[in-house]
């Protein structure tokens, strides 16, 4: 495998990890808001219990993605930075409001409700906005005059592909977070909350799949150059679909708890589904980062730097994996943390 392919594969992995972790993070923020006024359920507390320790770590994955892109593909950082200045700035502003208001809402009990609504809603918009960047990179939306390139916002706003992608982003974050929170609730031994998130996941699963398929279908006329590879690797998409169907069916599998469903296996299969689909999408996108102006080869970093970065990521991960394991045990496994005291209700 060539160096460029290794580098883009690493970027895909980081993008994929952040897409999953970010979706769950922002989705959980939404659910915490959605159920906060409900007296009968602890669904909101469970969502916050997940969110409090994890949002900072999730945010670091976003920075990791940006830094990795700058290091491995400085040319892409140049191009994307110039082109995407408006949408990315908007994401940054929303991100700041979301994080700050979430922390405020944990701190100022008097206004918790309003503050949670602000952080929940801004958080909901972020993944939708981020995903809408994808169709812009497939071509047709970028014009240039001399050295300057810019996005044709009118074309973007009238393109169906952009709206199907936004819908896909929204559905994904809600579905993934509902599914994960159902698993989290079960881990906490809270079958009542498990039931609520399971129901949400049941409704949102098909919606997400529908948006995924329509995003793909509206993409094809905009990006005929991607179709040929997609046809070649049809089996990846087929496997992804299979993982989706089986993953979704786990919500009805028998378990030894009161409710049906094996959410842990469901979460893993759905992550597999997204992994396969993203990999397929990424392969079809090759060799372009921005069609037709920029390929991975043109954007690639200096070969010496590439090797340094590779060792760096190897070493860094070796240190971090034990830290993540400790983190996982303390916040995702430990019953003392997961269970919600009655007085907190």
């Amino acid at each position: 495998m060539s160096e460029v392919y290794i580098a883009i594969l690493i970027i895909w992995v980081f993008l994929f990890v952040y897409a999953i972790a970010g979706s769950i993070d922002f989705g959980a923020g939404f659910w915490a808001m959605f159920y906060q006024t409900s007296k009968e359920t602890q669904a909101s507390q469970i969502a916050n219990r997940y969110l409090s320790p994890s949002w900072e770590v999730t945010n670091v994955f976003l920075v990791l993605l940006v830094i990795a892109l700058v290091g491995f593909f400085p040319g892409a950082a140049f191009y994307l930075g110039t082109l995407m200045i408006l949408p990315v700035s908007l994401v940054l502003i929303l991100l700041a409001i979301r994080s700050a208001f979430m922390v405020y809402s944990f701190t100022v009990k008097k206004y918790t409700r309003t503050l949670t609504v602000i952080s929940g809603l801004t958080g909901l918009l972020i993944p939708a906005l981020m995903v809408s960047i994808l169709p812009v990179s497939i071509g047709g939306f970028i014009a240039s005059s001399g050295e300057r390139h810019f996005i044709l916002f009118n074309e973007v706003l009238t393109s169906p592909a952009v709206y199907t992608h936004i819908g896909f982003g929204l559905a994904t974050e809600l579905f993934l977070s509902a599914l994960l929170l159902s698993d989290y609730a079960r881990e906490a031994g809270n079958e009542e909350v498990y039931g609520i998130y399971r129901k949400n996941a049941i409704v949102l699963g098909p919606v997400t799949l529908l948006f995924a398929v329509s995003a793909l279908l509206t993409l094809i006329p905009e990006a005929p150059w991607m179709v040929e590879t997609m046809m070649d690797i049809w089996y990846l998409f087929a496997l992804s679909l299979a993982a989706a169907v089986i993953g979704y069916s786990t919500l009805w599998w028998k378990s030894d708890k009161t409710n049906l469903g094996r959410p842990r296996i469901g979460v893993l299969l759905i992550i597999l589904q997204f992994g396969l689909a993203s990999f397929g999408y990424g392969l079809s996108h090759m060799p372009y980062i921005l069609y037709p102006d920029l390929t991975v080869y043109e954007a690639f970093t200096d070969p010496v730097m590439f090797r340094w970065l590779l060792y760096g990521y190897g070493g860094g991960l070796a240190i971090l994996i034990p830290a993540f394991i400790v983190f996982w045990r303390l916040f995702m496994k430990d019953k003392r943390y997961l269970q919600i005291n009655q007085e907190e209700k």
Partner: protein
Amino acid sequence: MDQVLLTRTLFGSSMAFHIIFATLGVGVTLMILFAEIMRWIRKDDDYGIMAKRWTKGFAILLGVAIPSGTIVGVMLSLLWPGFMEIVGKVIAVPFQIEIFAFFLEAVFMSIYIYAADRLSNVMRVISVALVAFGASSSAYLINIAHSWMNTPRGFQLTDGQVTDVDPWAAVMNPSMQYTSKHVLATAYMTGAFVLVSIAAYKLLRKTNSDHERAYHKKGLMLTLVVALIASLYTATNGHDTAKMLHNEMPLKLAAAEGLFETQANAPLAIMGIPDPETGTIIGGIEIPGMLSWLATGTTEGVVQGLNDFPREEWPPLFVHTLFNIMVGIGFSLIGIAGIAIAWSVLFRGRDFPAWLLLILVTTGPLSMLAIEMGWIFSCTGRQPWTIYGIQSTTDAATQSGNIGTLFILFMALYVMLLVLTGLVLKYYFSKNPLHEDLTKMKVQVLD
């Protein structure tokens, strides 16, 4: 305003905003670690409460520190795409390792805050030590990139193409040590002085109970000692930095000191306004030979002046004032901390007088002001270059329009977050006053 200036203003304001939170993030975590250690050594739960309350304040700041760090990190690519293209090829390594330090900090911060009750004493100190280590290392690493902008090494730029990349040489650039240590030491100093201010302010109140007064005095002494050590170190490091500037960036040194003529026995100008037309400093005090001595170690040493360099490469001369404010505050703070500590050593046990407490209240804001001045000095003093001598700021800046709109949006965001974060801090600590924590502790002890 022209495009480049607008871009600089947007990025500069974002940095000015972020640096407040970043500095406290580095400085306060170290103080939390010391409080935890004191609690352990002294077996005194007051220090435990101190660590807890500082941590709560820090956790609120994190809500802004983390996204503001993300903003400046991403903004680099948005506003300085030409710069980041070279960064990616030459100095990406410290950025990358910084991410791991950042992860370490985030992971153990969550563990320290949300799992404290499930950790043993040793594990708790280890977690907070890793938080402080992560915060400090990320500051150290990111400033390697900053130092490289001043003294770039490890590559050649021919016809806009980067060649002969040597990432290690880029990291080990001549100013790397000085810059990173300076930023770290001043962050420790500022974090400590901000907590000095709070403790001194609380001690000024007449309504303190004995226990509250004892608590604040412990806090004040702990923070003062750290503040004094960090500011003394900053002074020696600042001196080394001046020598480094003399060797590597003589023009920046000349602008900082307002020195026009190259000369031996160069005077040190304190305050005053450099006038480029006459080539003299208007007002201010000059100490003969002092600058030569500071830069070269002897009053005979020759220091290069501004006139040795083409006028279009001069940075704006107001950096002299920024530099003086920064150094002036630094020395005043050493004096104040020194007097306060001397007071408590000489008059063992006697309370600080109100006048001294009032002065101590100003140290936190002054320290933060010095940080801001230092950053503006360092980045303005590098102008007209982004990468000194290699890439001009004009070449580094984005070509996209809309910077004006973005500037307004981001300013509104920063002002809102500053005001709200202040209000949230005030709300939390007035709802959760110290005496409640102290009473709770007593009840626990009696149980």
